[in-house]
């Protein structure tokens, strides 16, 4: 087993999950300038909904995931309508407090209905495969392929469709978009929908390699924030690249420097990148 290729693969896997979570976060930030702390809770709910559908009705993994994307997406929309939309004229700090409140609420809610214990998601893709000398499970390969497929689809959606163009327009200039007749409320809801959906996809893909529990959102949300700061707040290529940079730093740092310092290395990298490019790798120009 060649350790370098193995660790590159591990970095790719973890980077894919990070990127997907960060993408949802950066989309919302790009449009509404809200740091949505509750995104981690959406991630957790995505995993729980997929798991519940699979356990309860024996629904197939992919279908369960699709339902979960829909449900969490709608939950995102609901969050926008009930919380962020009424706060649109409030000082920015109110959005942040509201987001943290949502995070705490959703976590306690999940513990109330699903219990505090760890659960396992078993997928039909547990088999071990050997890929050019690296060991992987089918699920891990799926994470990588799934993440890249989702990224391509998102890109095509934003660049090639009319609705996608309205999102970009709004990210570039909210008032301008409003002036040319774009319904900014609808675009905001759509963005939350996509953001929630991305969280559900990331959670459903990665839950089988870890466990499902109410606190699982914490594992990724802090890192997702690091990633979008690293990549440039609101930038989509930044979120993707940032996710993979963090994934590779963790896996290679843990291998060649020290596992105990891997978080240190990641944050050191953040400091270095920010001191060279204070706005992040890609300063935002409408994605």
């Amino acid at each position, binding site marked *: *087993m060649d*350790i370098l290729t193995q660790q590159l693969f591990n*970095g790719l*896997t*973890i980077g894919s999950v990070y990127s997907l979570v960060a993408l949802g976060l950066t989309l919302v930030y790009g449009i509404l300038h809200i740091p949505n702390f509750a995104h981690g809770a959406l991630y957790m709910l995505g995993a729980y909904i997929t798991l519940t559908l699979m356990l309860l009705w024996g629904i197939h993994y992919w279908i369960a995931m699709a339902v979960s994307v829909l449900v969490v997406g*709608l939950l995102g929309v609901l969050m926008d309508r009930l919380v962020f939309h009424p706060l649109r004229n409030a000082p920015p700090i109110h959005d942040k407090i509201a987001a943290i409140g949502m995070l705490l609420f959703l976590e306690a809610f999940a513990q109330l209905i699903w*219990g*505090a214990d760890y659960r396992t998601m078993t997928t039909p893709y547990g088999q071990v495969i050997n890929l050019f000398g690296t060991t992987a*499970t089918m699920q891990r390969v799926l994470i990588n392929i799934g993440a890249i497929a989702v990224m391509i689809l998102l890109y095509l959606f934003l660049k090639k469709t009319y609705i996608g163009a309205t999102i970009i327009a709004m990210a570039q200039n909210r008032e301008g978009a409003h002036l040319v007749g774009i319904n900014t409320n609808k675009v905001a809801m759509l963005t939350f929908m996509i953001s929630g959906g991305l969280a559900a996809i990331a959670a459903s893909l990665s839950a089988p390699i870890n466990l499902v529990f109410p606190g699982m959102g914490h594992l990724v949300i802090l890192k997702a924030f690091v990633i979008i700061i690293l990549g440039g707040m609101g930038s989509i290529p930044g979120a993707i690249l940032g996710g993979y940079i963090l994934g590779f730093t963790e896996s290679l740092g843990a291998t060649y420097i020290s596992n105990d310092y891997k978080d240190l290395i990641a944050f050191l990298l953040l400091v270095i990148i920010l001191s060279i490019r204070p706005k992040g790798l890609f300063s935002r120009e409408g994605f």
Partner: protein
Amino acid sequence: MKVFRLSAFLVMLSFLFILGGCIDNPSNSASGDGGGESQTEETKAEEGEKLVSIGYTGPLSGPAAYYGERSLNGLKMAVEEINNNGGFEIDGQTYKYNLVSLDDKYLPNETAANAKRLLQENNTPIIFTPHSGGVKAMQVFNEKENFLIGAYTSEPAVTAEGNELTVRIPPSYDGYIEPFTNYAMDNFGKKIAALPTSSQYGKDWTEALLPHWKEQGGEVVYNSSIDFSKDTDFFTLVTNALEGDPDVLFIGGPSEPTAKVAKQARELGFEGGFIVMDQAKLNEMKTVTGSFEMLNGAVGVTPLVNSDYPGTAEFIEKYKEKYGEEPGSEAGYHYVGMYAFMESMKAAGTVDDPEAIRSHMQEGLEAIPEEKEVYTIKRIEEDGGFTTGLRIAAVENGEIVTINVNE
């Protein structure tokens, strides 16, 4: 639009509730009544009876809630049994127990605050807590304020410092070091890679095990730790740990994530044995790996369901009936611990003098009725640690086998 929005919200909410209401994990379904203060089903002192309050402070919300609930369940069962059997009698006076539980979220500072509250409001002679941090926080003032700590932790340090009013209920992990090392070395080889949990307890365990391993002529090829609250994926760490081609992997932490580490090690082609820290239980790990096959060669503490003390079978049955799941050792030890304290109170002839209760603990242990011996605790050491006959277990050919250890 308003109506539409409201109805959409209600539909979503009911959908979530339906989802949540029905999900049932066959292996471990926790009841989610965590948080806040709760008392056992209203204990009322009847004519001529007196109530003795017993305190419990443990994690009843947050990531460790499941563990805290199960610990509390053991105490609850013992208290309810004692009360339903008419309480106990000292000098012609009948007493019943009143269990008061508080949530400390696994935080030592909260434990200390809870202990003060229990003392002031309920005047509890004994306070149980299931984590070493909480024990240490209470040890700061327990001798001065005069109450006994029922410490459920295998950390030897809690009794090493000579606190006179601390009773350590489970055996200290010191005792496991030698038999685990022997088993793993004899069966697999001398190279070990350590990947324990990054808590203080995990570090202490590692520091106890690895020097002994080296003394026995073994070699440590990798030593790091996993932070289960931060790492999304363990593949990276396990890959590194396996790079030195170890024969044995030392793992530990909460059962479920620990099992995930073992599973990923197998996926990466590891064929050696595992030494499992006492926090993780082999039977609970099975719920994650699916079968014991994947854990072949793992050595750890004997799960309660595989133990054969005089009272174990009856306890397991009663627990299953009441809570619908198999009990873990935390429930069993709290149950038997409660009985030990009751018998000690009888032997001491007092319910509110912690020093006297502590000094009659040995008599109390001997007086525990056989059918209540979920664990047989032979004696209490000078330092306040219970000595339970050491039982360890290993997984061989997909089954748990118990291993006898010479004491």
